[in-house]
């Protein structure tokens, strides 16, 4: 008999899938909303339990999906890192749904709300499955699920503009999954396995014998490019601002905060569990990641600086943040990957906080999204104002906040690799200055009183004011205060992968 908590990954995935499937039977969008909230809260609690069990013991386990062990059946695998990601996915999904609920019911037609929540549940299941999977092909299937679900939650708002941006998002995502699929297929051809540990044995054998070196390099490249396209790394990320900027608030928060991160977590898992990180470094994939990451940091910051529309600005800033993550992985030191992971966690809290607050602030002036016209809105809705300020300060890198901790460890790990130290440091500095240049005017604008503007009466949203914004903000502060502990836990988790 297995310890009971080994069942948690499978139970959370299947719970999300089954609730997603059964939503069409419910009578209204409101009920679907409550079910989705309930499911994401349950997933959060279950993952918290899993964290509580595996982190102190530093345990890593695999879990058979069915009656057949590793090379024959599907498997899941989980350890401290997966548990933490599951917890963050569940929690942030819950908070985004709660915080954006009013805009959600306003933006989406009543007849179509149930469909939206089916998508949300399936997206959650796909994110969890991508994190927990121990099987590459399962990974591919759930990547496709998350592609369709992510496009559908963008298009749920149903304006001509969102349909246009969704079609571009879908086309580019399909390129990504096509490349990923052909990578998996080639890998199957040369190793004969689909489960990660078995592929790893074969890959190590191939590397030591020097057989099939070319296909192996091509596979690593294809898997990386496939996922980079989906997680909007710089040259492949042109679809992101329009898709994320146009969607309803909850969708933007979930897409920017979670979906992009799900792919990256899977990529890290593939690097560690399929190729082993040393092989990846030998194949020079990390150098490409490093270069793309740096370029993405600069490009995202410049574009965000030039953007007027507040949600598109946040989306461009996401591109820059994705650049930080890839730069961290590309630094070739283990602390760098840990710092990238911390950055993933911090960004998973900060971006939804910023999107939700920006959504609330723009309601003050008739859903006006231009940042210039949001002047004084924070005085009408001070919870959103404070939330936005905390988020922006974390982005800029004020000490005691999450963004500072992540950047601090990125710099520390850059110090450990002299070859990449100067490019990394200079880019980090430029990007930090740019961050301050586009976030601070925003913060000043929302706190500047505007005598001539005519604000709307703000409907209070207790879920946002009392739960969403405070919890997301305290998540940011918690990560900032406990950066060292988190890095320790992450490093131990990475060693187990």
């Amino acid at each position, binding site marked *: 008999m297995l310890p009971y908590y080994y069942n948690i990954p499978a139970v959370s995935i299947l719970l999300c899938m089954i609730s997603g499937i059964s939503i069409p039977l419910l009578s209204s969008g409101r009920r679907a909303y409550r079910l989705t909230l309930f499911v994401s809260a349950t997933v959060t609690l279950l993952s918290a339990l899993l964290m509580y069990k595996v982190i102190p013991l530093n345990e890593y386990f695999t879990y058979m999906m069915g009656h057949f062990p590793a090379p024959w059946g599907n498997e899941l695998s989980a350890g401290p890192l997966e548990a933490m990601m599951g917890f963050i996915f569940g929690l942030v999904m819950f908070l985004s749904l709660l915080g954006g609920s009013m805009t959600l019911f306003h933006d989406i037609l009543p007849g179509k709300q149930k469909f939206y929540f089916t998508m949300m549940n399936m997206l959650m299941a796909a994110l969890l499955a991508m994190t927990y999977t121990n099987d590459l*092909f399962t990974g591919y*299937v759930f990547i*496709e699920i998350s*592609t*369709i679900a992510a*496009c*559908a939650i963008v*298009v749920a708002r149903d304006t*001509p*503009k969102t*349909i*246009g941006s*969704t*079609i*571009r998002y*879908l*086309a580019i995502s*399909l*390129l990504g999954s*096509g490349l990923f*699929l*052909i990578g998996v*297929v080639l890998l*199957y*051809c040369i190793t004969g396995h*689909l489960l990660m540990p078995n592929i790893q044995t074969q890959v190590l054998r191939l590397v030591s014998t020097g057989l099939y070196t070319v296909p192996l390099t091509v596979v690593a490249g294809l898997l990386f490019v496939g996922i980079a396209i989906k997680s909007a790394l710089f040259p492949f990320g042109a679809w992101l601002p329009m898709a994320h900027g146009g969607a309803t608030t909850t969708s933007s928060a979930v897409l920017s905060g979670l979906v992009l991160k799900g792919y990256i977590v899977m990529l890290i898992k593939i690097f560690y569990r399929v190729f082993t990180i040393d092989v990846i470094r030998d194949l020079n994939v990390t150098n490409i990641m490093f270069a793309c990451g740096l370029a993405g940091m600069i490009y995202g910051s410049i574009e965000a600086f030039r953007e007027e529309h507040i949600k598109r600005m946040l989306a461009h800033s996401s591109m820059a943040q994705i650049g930080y993550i890839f730069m961290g992985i590309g630094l070739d030191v283990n602390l760098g990957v840990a710092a990238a992971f911390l950055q993933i966690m911090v960004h998973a809290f900060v971006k939804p906080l910023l999107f939700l607050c920006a959504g609330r602030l723009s309601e003050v002036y008739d859903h006006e999204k231009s940042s210039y016209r949001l002047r004084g809105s924070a005085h009408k809705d001070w919870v959103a104002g404070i939330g936005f300020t905390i988020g922006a300060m974390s982005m800029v890198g004020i000490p005691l906040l999450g963004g500072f901790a992540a950047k601090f460890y990125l710099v520390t790990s850059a110090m450990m690799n002299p070859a990449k130290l100067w490019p990394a440091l200079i880019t980090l500095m430029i990007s930090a200055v740019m961050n301050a240049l586009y976030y601070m005017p925003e913060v000043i604008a929302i706190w500047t009183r505007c005598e001539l503007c005519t604000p709307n009466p703000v409907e209070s949203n207790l879920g946002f004011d009392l739960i969403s914004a405070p919890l997301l903000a305290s998540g940011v502060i918690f990560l900032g205060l406990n950066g060292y502990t988190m890095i320790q836990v992450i490093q131990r988790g990475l060693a187990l992968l």
Partner: protein
Amino acid sequence: MKQFIVELINDRFMIAAVLLFGLGFMNLLLQKNLIKKIIGFNVMDSSIFLFLASQGYINGRIAPIITNGVFDAEVYINPIPSGLVLTGIVVSVSVTAFFLALTVRLYGIYKTVDFDEIMLLINKEAE
């Protein structure tokens, strides 16, 4: 040289698959017409399935359905690629349907399926 040509003929399915993949990829990237983009995507996916199916085939063996009580693995081809192709086909059908639905809606709004024109019109509206 002779060796090379023999290998080329032997690998014909995989080579065809790669060429088709390139063709589909290019259509998905470059076609303006959304319907042709979708066709390109389907060609691309089908090429991957051709590749996968050709990987499963072994000369002189039969389909993996146990016949006459013969359980010897030497008799049947590799069943795994067939299963993976099945999964892939379903995913590709679903994505195609979604893509087509988006195209239908855009056509309903702008009365054109030229993606560049649509994007220009959308941007014009935003200004």
